[in-house]
């Protein structure tokens, strides 16, 4: 399947888009998605454990991803 992933700030710059579709096997966990993103152009910017939000809440790398989830891979936050 293909997972649409939202990107922001430095990640949007690196991948050249604010949203990309990432091909993954099903079933898929967050870690699998990140592995698939690393080989894409721009994937070198991802740290060892990038921040990931699923449906606008933080999740860890073992969390499963289902079709229809809103997935965001998130650069180091710098609010305030």
């Amino acid at each position, binding site marked *: 399947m293909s997972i649409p992933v939202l990107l922001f700030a430095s990640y949007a710059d690196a991948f050249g888009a604010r949203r990309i579709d990432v091909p993954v096997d099903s079933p898929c966990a967050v870690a699998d998605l990140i592995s698939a993103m690393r080989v894409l152009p721009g994937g070198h910017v991802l740290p060892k454990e990038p921040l990931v939000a699923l449906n606008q*809440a933080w999740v860890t790398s073992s969390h499963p991803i289902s079709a229809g989830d809103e997935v965001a891979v998130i*650069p180091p936050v710098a609010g305030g």
Partner: protein
Amino acid sequence: MTAPMTAHTPATVETAGSPQPEAPHAPYAAIVEAPIDIPALMARVESSGVGAISLFVGTVRDLNDGQAVTGIDYEAYQPMAELELGRIAREAATEIPGIRVAIEHRVGTLRVGEASIVIVAGHARRAPAMAATQRIIEVLKQRVPIWKREHYVSGERHWVDPTRC
């Protein structure tokens, strides 16, 4: 190009004017594009039972890590940032009974001196009000999906990565 996402209706609902001053206060949290109206934000926590209001205001300064800064672009994952701000405010309300909280974080391009974040906490007593603003700004910097790109005098612009400090 990474323009900031637009800000819409706040994710949390402000409290209705209640006749009972002791009623729990629904925290207010929003991502905004316009300059933050600090007196209006303060008014959201005012109540006849409040004796102390603590505010934290984060502003754009002209120097960071030794580099002269001329402005900052703030970008947010807007709907999640607003949700997360609201969660942080509600957590503070759970841990500090009686606290009244209002938060606005601005996005877009800010000049030096402009406020990017304002946190207001009201309480009957001083210590809980001050503890709330301190707690909220620290958690906010860890958890809210907002980024900033500094503009330098050289014309360069870089996204700030606090994990590299």
